[in-house]
């Protein structure tokens, strides 16, 4: 069990690196679609982060959070795409 706790700690720190990379693109992205892509990536990495945390803390109820994040992330991207097309 302690190996799994250690693995979870390593996995959570590497997922933080992925968060950071996506966040850099969110800040730097030259155009609005670049930022939307970065937000989409942040949502998906968040799903992975919550799932890894559910394993680390042994709480299966956190899987609901991951499912809802998947739904909201998709809706957000679709809304942004619709907004971009309307604006053009």
């Amino acid at each position, binding site marked *: 069990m302690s190996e799994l706790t250690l693995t979870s700690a390593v996995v959570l720190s590497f997922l933080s690196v*992925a968060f950071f990379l996506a966040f850099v*693109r969110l800040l730097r992205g030259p155009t609005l679609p670049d930022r939307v892509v970065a937000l989409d990536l942040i949502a998906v990495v968040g*799903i992975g982060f919550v799932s890894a945390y559910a394993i680390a803390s042994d709480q299966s109820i956190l899987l609901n959070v991951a499912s809802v994040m*998947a739904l909201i992330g998709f809706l957000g991207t679709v809304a942004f795409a619709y907004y971009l097309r309307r604006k*053009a």
Partner: protein
Amino acid sequence: MQDAVCAALMIAGTFFMVVGGVGVIRFPDLYMRVSSSTKASTLGAGFILLSLAFHFNELGTTMRAVATITFLVVTGPVSAHLISRAAYGIGVRLWEGTIRDELRGRYNPDTNVVESVELESNEDERPQAP
């Protein structure tokens, strides 16, 4: 044994997540970044959710994990297509080293329709991205 499988799946998922993040930073234009972000991160989230299903080993949790994976796999390409198409419509440039642009001269920005014959106006007259 179960912990080993769980840890291996989690590490594989994290690897793909980080690869997706690096791709989003390093690739030179939006369309490549969409490709990197969508495919790599969907695979990564799928692996981590599978690892969660292995860890808890209950029917309800496994079903929810599989449902979330299915939703991610179905919606990932849809959202990538939507955002790339909207970006092409508002005139986001391709990388200057891009060899082939199949939509060039065929995309009608007024109607958002891809025509089967070449239009009069070419890509250079598309409005520029803000």
